[in-house]
């Protein structure tokens, strides 16, 4: 494990940039670390309310079936059971992430579409009674033919998983992205190459299982505590499915124990807890078992990516055609997003003048997939980055060189009109390659190898209607600062970084800033944690709110001491004028109080990335985000040719996340992302049984999250760019680094064994098979 280095690639040396800041760029301990380390942080599962009931969900044993009847009588009669509900009791209102792709009910109505689909719910005096009641619910199903692969699902005559005119052959969403002319591009190409890549599913597997507690009060107010990434969106979905107005619903996000995308959607635990609390008048708590929290929520989309690329003799990419099919499982969830994001991250980080992407999202009778760290990009980058190495080999080029030649740069005229205000990609290539020892180690064979993978990622996704965030900064009489933000900290440290931003902007010490977040009744609207947008969007809103209140204070102070408020500033708890300390902040606060201006002292901020209306997600060229992170990972591996086992010796990440507001936290994001990518590449696998679509890895025994002993040596190199969009130059750092781990490792394995595997995960068995095929081929050729 190496310390991250700061390497300036802007025109100013980094030391100079940092000089002016008091808390930005410093690895201050997180605001919530103390509570967490003494066990006092309160997660949803830790909350207990008076008179509370416990809820559980009955799930379908069929992959695809019509619900003929449900008899709840026996369950209702069990002592301690207070309520049993089924799809018949609820409003037939569909919900989902993207309005035009909504296809889910709070509980199944008429039909179940995967083993685990939500059929009924029970609320009882304790968990054991609720579990016992589930056994007493009698459901008659009429099983229907089911499909478990996208190939089968798209065949003519395949069972219709969702009926209706919008869906044909189970293709629920299709998308074509096109610019330039690929035909012309392929004609002009010196060399054309087509390969097919496959990626498998992955569970997000945050350590905290999904949980919710609903409390309905006679006044008509519903409060839901939920382990959610998007409190405001959950409020919206709850209100619409329950048939009440949003102002009657309050969603509070307690401390959340990890999300990675799997806590974006509303789940039956939210809906049913709310519904049953409204009916029983008692609080209802629901906590998913580990199996449910793995197999009845969301996962990463398995994919098939066909890539045809035409290159010039010197390695420049001229034309690219990509055919992407993702396995959506039983519901759409983020369907339009996964395929468009895959598309956007086919256009980054290389210059591709002519490109066509044909993408399909296909229903199958397996659990639904949704947003997961990198959301579509890991699939796309695994394919394209693998093919970059293949193309380099075809052309007799160095795999680093072909990437350098094609790398996008800041200010470039992007073929799809993306705007790259800052871009440290080229630097990341060189830094990662150097750190892994590219020149000395590449191409040496002998079952040891190095490989590269690169990508970029969005700092929040804007090209899909209004995605913004608000913030309020309150100055307390005693000089303390309270920030209200809708941002949802799910463990990534959002609250802490927002506190740093406010402290810096307002010029007060970090310890004075308190953040109150993610309570829809108290905090301003925010679009929540997804697409790595929190620091840029909510952080910027908080910065603007701090700036607003700073201006108010300085106006009063200027009146008092004379001079132009523009020439005043606040730093390190003092008011400064022309480089001179003038008064401490507490005195300034007092002045404001005696100035008879409005109290409370509040600053307001709102930030929204430029967006078009209506949603342009599936159509226009253009920008999907205000800024993009870039990075390269380099992996060094060793393969045991006898067992096929892979040892990951080292992974270097050179990452342009703009300015690192908290370098330790940025490093932590990267290190965690790498392990998630490593697990997916090597041994994490839901392992679907193709006879009925069930995932076989349903526990932490069988689903193999990497352990501490599986952690390789990691080096993280920060490439500091000063992006003009984000607060203090920050860009995203939460997801990008997981996107290119698979290609880095796979390219390194290829370098080590001289043969390539195009489908994930890379099991020892596949390596042995690949080696055998290579040897057989070698023998034949000899």
């Amino acid at each position, binding site marked *: *494990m190496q310390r991250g280095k700061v390497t300036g690639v802007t025109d100013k040396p980094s030391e100079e940039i940092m000089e002016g800041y008091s808390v930005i760029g410093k*690895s201050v*301990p*997180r605001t*919530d*670390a*103390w*509570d*967490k*380390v*003494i*066990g*006092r*942080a*309160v*997660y949803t*599962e*830790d909350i*207990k309310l008076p008179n509370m009931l416990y809820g559980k969900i009955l799930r379908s044993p069929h992959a695809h079936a019509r619900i003929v009847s449900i008899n709840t009588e026996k369950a209702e009669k069990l002592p301690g059971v207070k309520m049993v509900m089924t799809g018949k009791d609820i409003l037939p209102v569909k919900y989902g992430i993207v309005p035009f792709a909504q296809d889910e009910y709070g509980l199944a109505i008429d039909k179940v579409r995967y083993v685990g689909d939500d059929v009924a719910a029970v609320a009882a005096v304790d968990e054991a009674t609720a579990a016992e009641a589930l056994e007493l619910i009698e459901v008659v199903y009429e099983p229907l033919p089911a499909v478990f692969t996208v190939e089968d699902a798209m065949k003519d005559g395949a069972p219709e998983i969702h009926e209706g005119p919008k869906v044909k052959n189970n293709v629920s969403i299709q998308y074509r992205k096109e610019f330039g002319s690929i035909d012309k591009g392929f004609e002009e190409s010196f060399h054309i190459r087509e390969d097919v890549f496959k990626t498998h599913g992955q569970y*997000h*597997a*945050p*350590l*905290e*299982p999904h949980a919710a507690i609903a409390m309905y009060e006679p006044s008509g107010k519903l409060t839901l505590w939920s382990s959610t990434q998007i409190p405001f969106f959950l409020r919206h979905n709850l209100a619409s499915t329950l048939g009440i107005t949003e102002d009657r619903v309050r969603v509070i996000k307690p*401390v*959340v*124990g*990890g999300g*990675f995308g799997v806590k974006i959607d509303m789940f039956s635990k939210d809906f049913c807890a709310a519904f049953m609390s409204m009916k029983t008048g008692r609080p209802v708590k629901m*906590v998913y*078992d*580990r199996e449910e929290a793995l197999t009845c929520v969301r996962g990463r989309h398995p994919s098939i990516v066909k890539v045809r690329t035409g290159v010039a003799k010197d390695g420049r990419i001229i034309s690219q055609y990509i055919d992407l099919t993702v396995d959506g499982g039983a519901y759409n969830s983020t369907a339009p997003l996964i395929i468009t994001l895959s598309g956007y991250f086919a256009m980054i980080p290389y210059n591709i003048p002519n490109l066509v992407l044909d993408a399909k999202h296909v229903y199958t009778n397996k659990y639904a997939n949704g947003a997961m760290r990198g959301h579509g990009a890991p699939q796309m980058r695994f394919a394209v980055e693998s093919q970059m190495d293949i193309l380099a080999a075809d052309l007799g080029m160095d795999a680093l060189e072909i990437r350098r030649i094609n790398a996008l740069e800041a200010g470039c005229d992007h073929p799809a009109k993306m705007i790259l205000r800052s871009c440290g990609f080229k630097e990341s290539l060189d830094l990662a390659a150097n750190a892994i020892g590219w020149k000395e180690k590449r191409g040496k064979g002998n079952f040891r190898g190095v490989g590269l993978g690169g990508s970029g990622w969005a700092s929040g996704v804007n090209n899909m209607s209004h995605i913004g965030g608000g913030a309020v900064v309150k100055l307390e009489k005693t000089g303390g600062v309270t920030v209200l933000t809708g941002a949802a900290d*799910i*463990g*990534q*440290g959002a609250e802490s970084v927002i506190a740093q931003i406010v402290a810096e902007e307002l010029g007060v010490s970090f310890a004075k800033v308190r953040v109150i977040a993610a309570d829809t009744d108290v905090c301003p609207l925010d679009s929540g944690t997804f697409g790595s947008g929190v620091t840029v969007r909510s952080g910027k809103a908080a910065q603007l709110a701090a700036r607003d209140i700073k201006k108010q204070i300085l106006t009063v102070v200027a009146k008092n001491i004379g001079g132009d408020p523009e020439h005043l500033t606040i730093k390190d708890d003092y008011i400064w004028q022309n480089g001179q300390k003038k008064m401490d902040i507490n005195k300034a606060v007092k002045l404001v109080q005696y100035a008879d201006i409005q109290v409370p002292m509040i600053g307001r901020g709102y930030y929204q990335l430029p967006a078009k209306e209506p949603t342009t997600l599936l159509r226009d060229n253009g920008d999907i985000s205000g800024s993009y992170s870039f990075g390269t990972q380099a992996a060094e591996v060793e393969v045991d040719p006898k067992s096929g086992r892979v040892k990951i010796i080292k992974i270097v990440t050179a990452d342009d996340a703009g300015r690192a507001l908290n370098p*330790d*936290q940025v*490093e*932590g994001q990267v*290190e*965690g*992302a*790498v*392990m*998630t990518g490593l697990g997916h590449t090597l041994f994490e696998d839901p392992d679907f049984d193709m006879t009925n679509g069930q995932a076989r890895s349903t*526990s*932490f*025994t069988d689903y193999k*999250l990497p*352990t*501490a*002993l599986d*952690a390789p040596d*990691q080096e993280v190199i920060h490439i500091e760019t000063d992006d003009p969009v984000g607060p203090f130059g920050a860009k995203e750092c939460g997801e990008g680094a997981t996107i290119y781990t698979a290609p880095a490792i796979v390219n390194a394995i290829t370098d080590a064994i001289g043969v390539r595997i195009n489908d994930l995960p890379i099991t020892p068995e596949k390596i042995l098979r690949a080696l055998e095929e290579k040897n057989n081929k070698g023998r034949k050729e000899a």
Partner: protein
Amino acid sequence: MATKQIIVLNVNGDDHEILVKPQQTLLEVLRETLGFTGTKQGCNEGSCGACTVLVNNKPTLACSTLAVAAVGKEIMTIEGLAGQDGTLHPIQKSFVENGAIQCGFCTPGMVMSTKSLLDRNPNPSEEEIKEGLSGNLCRCTGYAKIIKAVKAVAAG
């Protein structure tokens, strides 16, 4: 059948007299009956380490232990580690200072496993640290900062 019984559990030095059913796990009783919610339920099947507590100084999965079987033993949870006056234990301090905490859900178990490791081996090598923590899953950190925190506190 399973009759409830009154038992005394010694948690963090205090005796608690409580009524339990034999089938209640130590985890359930710590969290639900006694309110020691710092001990987390990550999998409830003995595979993630989030519920690690010390029972007679042994790192123990509370989810795989019956409460009735913990009678007469000294149970220490994360709540019992910091000083009475609120000062953090050096391990806790090191976790905070070294960025070893993200979502925090694995943290209490991770800290208890670290305590157990350092109690039996005050100067562990990096490999021994990894071994000592290999029963505690973390999805956020990639373990790097946690290992760093343990190294830092071991070095004193």
